[in-house]
């Protein structure tokens, strides 16, 4: 018994973190959905969900309950156990990917020394969930959606991988935490060094998460809901969860690789230390807003609820502020790191939403052509460019900014050329099959 505990001791903290993530993730996902609906409503000049809870704050929970209570339908002569397996695969892949991500200097399940490779590999396994699900449900819509998504993912994984490789070149390590530390040490986020790589990864990640404008696998207008046409209830919820998990994963990856992970802006500039107050102030502001809105609520319950929310925010603010006043046992780095990290991830996801509500959907051949004719070449050229820049910097002693400026401009020129030729190709290809 004792040696068993001894055996497990080093693994206790990771297990805790894992439990936290598994517990909190669905909640976060649900609220991301709520946020998305609100943003959509805002962009479409309406209110969005308002009924359940003040400003629909309880909507996600209601949805979750509804989904859990729904009847679980398995279509006739579907391949039962694959049908059952597929959603699990998706979710598992997403969550496994989370396991190697550093949400803060301390908050990380396992800092693998091949962390990035691990994450990429695992998230690439998420495809199987989609494909098998689409195939198993024995419906043409689903199968088409599955085929589309697999083709799409395979195509865009290359571009994303290349983008990440260019960041890797800068970092010189695969371990996520170390990558962040490298950025801290170098005092610059890689997005500023390799903007093209960041852009490439942004586009590719949107495509990988099957979100608009690349949401062909689940294009309502073409195939009812793509690979999850036949799914309903809990399994469907799993797919949904998987999708949002993936969004969080890619957001986190982007954050770690390009946006300096848990670092606050300009971590090394002590002149800007007042940034440390931002988290607390922000939470206080939220609390204040809730208090201000509270009297306007129609029902007393909602008034009370809003007040409670305000209190919660105030509590968080206090916790965030505590380290600044030297309260023991609360490390500033950990708390603020988590805050900044989540902030960046949510900003990234916000960009997703923004694009989703802004752009129309691609045609499939356009999608493929964008992937193969533009993104992949550009990303490859970009990798070469960054390599060249590093050589110029290290071997020939150019100034860093000069080297990267030169290569970036060169890559941009290539990209422009590619875009132009692709335009011509496009006009030539009109009507041709993709």
């Amino acid at each position, binding site marked *: 018994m004792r040696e068993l505990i001894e*055996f497990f001791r080093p693994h206790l903290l990771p297990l805790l973190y894992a439990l936290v993530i598994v517990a909190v993730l669905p909640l976060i996902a649900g609220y991301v959905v709520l946020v998305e609906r609100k943003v959509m409503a805002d962009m479409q000049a309406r209110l969005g969900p308002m009924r359940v809870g003040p400003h629909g704050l309880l909507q996600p929970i209601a949805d979750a309950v509804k989904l859990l209570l729904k009847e679980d339908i398995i279509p006739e002569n579907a*391949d039962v156990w*694959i049908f059952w397996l597929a959603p699990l695969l998706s979710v598992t892949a997403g969550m496994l990917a989370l396991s190697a991500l550093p949400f803060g200097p301390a908050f990380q399940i396992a800092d693998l*020394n*091949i962390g990035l*490779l691990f994450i*990429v590999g695992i998230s*690439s396994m998420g495809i199987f969930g989609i494909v*098998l699900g689409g195939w198993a449900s024995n419906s043409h819509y689903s199968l088409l959606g599955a085929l589309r998504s697999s083709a799409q*993912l395979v195509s865009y994984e290359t571009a994303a991988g290349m983008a990440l490789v260019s960041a890797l070149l800068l970092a010189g390590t695969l371990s996520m935490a170390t990558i962040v530390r490298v950025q801290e040490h170098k005092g610059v986020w890689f997005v500023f060094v390799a903007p093209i790589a960041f852009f490439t990864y942004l586009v590719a990640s949107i495509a990988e998460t099957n979100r608009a404008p690349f949401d062909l696998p689940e294009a309502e207008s073409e195939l009812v809901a793509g690979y999850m046409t036949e799914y309903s209830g809990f399994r469907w919820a799993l797919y949904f969860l998987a999708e949002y998990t993936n969004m969080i994963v890619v957001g986190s990856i982007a954050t770690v690789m390009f946006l300096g992970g848990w670092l606050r802006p300009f971590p090394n500039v002590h002149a800007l230390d007042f940034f440390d107050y931002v988290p607390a102030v922000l939470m206080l502001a939220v609390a204040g807003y809730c208090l201000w809105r509270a009297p306007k609520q129609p029902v007393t319950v909602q008034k009370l609820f809003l007040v409670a929310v305000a209190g919660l925010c105030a509590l968080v603010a206090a916790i965030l502020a505590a380290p600044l006043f030297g309260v023991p046992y609360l490390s500033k780095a950990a708390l603020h790191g988590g805050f900044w990290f989540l902030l960046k991830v949510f900003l990234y996801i916000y960009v997703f939403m923004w694009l989703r509500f802004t752009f129309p959907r691609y045609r499939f051949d356009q999608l493929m052509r964008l992937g193969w004719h533009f993104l992949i070449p550009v990303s490859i050229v970009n990798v070469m460019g960054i390599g060249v820049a590093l050589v110029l910097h290290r071997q020939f002693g150019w100034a860093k900014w000069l080297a990267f400026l030169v290569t970036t401009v060169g890559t941009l020129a290539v990209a422009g050329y590619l875009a132009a030729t692709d335009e011509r190709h496009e006009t030539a290809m009109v009507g041709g099959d993709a």
Partner: protein
Amino acid sequence: MLDKVVFYFFAGLAVLSAILVVTRRNVVHSAIFLITALLATAGIFLQLHAEFLFAVQIILYVGGIMVLFIFVIMLVNLDVALHQVQFNRQTLLALLLTLALAAQLGLGLRLGRSVMFAPARPGPLEPNTELVGRTLFQNYMLPFEIASILLLVAMIGAVVMAKKKV
């Protein structure tokens, strides 16, 4: 202790799913079991502290090749294939011969015990990825390039063959 558990678990998983791969009637099931087999192999790699190979195994095999396989399976998906005979005429003979082969190989392993039973000693293979990288790009530069050319050729060949009008 944990080592042994991991190894035997993954080994059993690998063998089991391998058997299922060759015996399933439905191609998709075979593919899934192949995936599990590959993942098990990956686990064994990890257990051998070959993290880089583990990652590569997952990314390339599971994330790349198997996706290709499933893609193709769905392209050539034939319901009739499910109702056809799955094993060809030479099955029995093949079984016997292969088992004989296995027996011979096993015999070879037994005879080689003097060498073979040496325990895998924890080699100085850390950090794995850097080591692989250096060896690959210093000692094995030429084979690496050749391999890349092979990939290029394979890609072109696949494209040409998959074209509608050859």
